[in-house]
C-alpha cells in the first residue's frame, strides 16, 4: 500500500470515527452538568468515613482500592515484561566478525561531555526532588498527592543523578537487586494489607487501622496513608528499573539483568573501568 492509499483509507475511517464521536457527544449531559450520583455521594461521606481530606486518594486507596491493586500490578508486570523483552538473546552480539552491533557502535560514539551547568543544577535538584517525592507519597490523605505521583518524582531524583553525567553512580545507587526487592515489597505490601483485613475476618482491603481524630492529618485515614506509601515505593522502584533498563541498552554492553547474574565479577569490572 502506498502512503497515499493509506491516507485515503485513514480519511475514510476517521470520517466514520468522527460521526460516531459526535453521535456519542450528543448523548452526554454537557460540560459542567455532571449528573452523579456516585461522585457526589462520596463527596458527602468521605471525611466522615475515612478522615481523609483528599477525596481522590480516598477513592483510589479505599473505595476503589481493589481496582488500584490491579493498577499497581499492571506497572509491576510492565517492569517485569521489559526485563524479559530486553534480556540478552542467545547469540546476540557474539557472532559475525567485522560487523558491529548497534550497542558496539554506541560504545565507540563520540558524545559531548555534560556541561558543568547541567551537572551543578541536576546535583542541586537531587535533594529537593527526593524530599518532594517522599512528601507526596506520605501525604495522600491530605493534599493532591499520593503514591503514584510521589513515586514518579522520587524516581526522578535518581534520573537527576544520571543527568549530572554520573551513570555509574546512578547504577551504584540503584542496584537491580535492591530495586527488585523494593518493588516486590511495595506491590506485595499492598496486597498484604488487604489480606490482613481478610485474616481479621473483614472484607478485603477494609480500613482496619485507627482513622485518627483530625481530618487530613498525617496520622489520619488508616490504611489509605499506609497503602499510598507502599504504592510510592513500588512506583519509584518500577520507574527506576524501567528507565535503568533502557539506559543500559544504550549506554552499556549487555543488559542490567545479565550483569546481575554475573554477580560480583561484573561489578568489579565496572569499578575498574571507572
Amino acid at each position, binding site marked *: 500500500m502506498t502512503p497515499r492509499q493509506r491516507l485515503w483509507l485513514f480519511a475514510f475511517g476517521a470520517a466514520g470515527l468522527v460521526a460516531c464521536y459526535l453521535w456519542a457527544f450528543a448523548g452526554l449531559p454537557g460540560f*459542567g452538568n455532571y449528573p452523579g450520583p456516585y461522585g457526589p455521594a462520596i463527596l458527602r461521606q468521605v471525611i466522615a468515613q475515612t478522615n481523609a481530606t483528599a477525596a481522590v486518594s480516598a477513592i483510589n486507596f479505599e473505595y476503589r482500592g481493589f481496582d488500584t491493586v490491579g493498577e499497581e500490578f499492571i506497572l509491576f508486570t510492565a517492569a517485569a515484561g521489559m526485563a524479559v523483552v530486553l534480556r540478552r538473546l542467545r547469540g*546476540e552480539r557474539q557472532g559475525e566478525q567485522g560487523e558491529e552491533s548497534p550497542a558496539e557502535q554506541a560504545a565507540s560514539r563520540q558524545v559531548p561531555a555534560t556541561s558543568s551547568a547541567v551537572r551543578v543544577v541536576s546535583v542541586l535538584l537531587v535533594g529537593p526532588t527526593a524530599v518532594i517525592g517522599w512528601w507526596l507519597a506520605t501525604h495522600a490523605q*491530605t493534599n493532591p498527592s499520593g503514591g503514584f505521583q510521589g513515586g514518579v518524582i522520587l524516581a526522578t531524583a535518581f534520573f537527576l543523578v544520571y543527568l549530572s553525567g554520573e551513570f555509574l553512580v546512578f547504577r551504584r545507587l540503584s542496584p537491580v537487586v535492591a530495586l527488585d526487592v523494593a518493588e516486590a515489597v511495595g506491590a506485595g505490601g499492598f496486597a498484604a494489607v488487604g489480606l490482613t483485613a481478610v485474616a481479621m475476618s473483614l472484607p478485603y482491603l477494609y480500613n482496619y487501622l485507627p482513622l485518627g481524630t483530625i481530618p487530613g492529618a498525617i496520622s489520619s485515614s488508616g490504611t489509605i496513608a499506609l497503602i499510598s506509601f507502599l504504592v510510592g515505593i513500588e512506583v519509584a522502584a518500577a520507574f527506576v528499573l524501567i528507565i535503568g533498563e533502557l539506559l543500559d541498552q544504550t549506554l552499556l554492553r549487555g543488559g542490567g539483568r545479565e550483569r546481575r547474574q554475573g554477580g560480583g565479577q561484573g561489578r568489579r569490572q565496572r569499578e575498574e573501568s571507572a
Partner: protein
Amino acid sequence: MMQVFPFLVVAWIVLMGLYGMVTSRDLIHLIVCLIVVQSSTYVLLLGVGYVTGGVAPYFFDISPHVKAVDPVVQALTLTDVVVEAAVTALLLSFAVQAHKRFGTLDPHELAPFKG
C-alpha cells in the same frame, strides 16, 4: 458551544494522534502518537466530571460542603496515566528489540513478522 467544546477537543486530539500514527515513519514517533491518542481520554474523563463552579475535591483548608467536581473520574484518570506509562515502557522496549533485530525503526522497512 461551551457545552460540547471540551469534547470536540477530545475528538481533535484523537484524530491528530491517529493521523500521526498512520503517517509515522519511525517507531518512537509512532509510540509518542499513541500517547497523544491516549491523552485524549484524560481530557474526556475530566471534562465529563466537571461541575460548573466546582473546586478540586480536596478539603484540607476549605469546608467539605463547598461544591466540588467529581472525584471518581479524577481517580480514573490517575489509573489511566499509570497504565499509559506501563504501556509506553513496554512498547519502547519492543522498539529497542526491533532496532536490534532489523537495524531500522521505520515501520515500512520492517520485515513482516514471522511466527
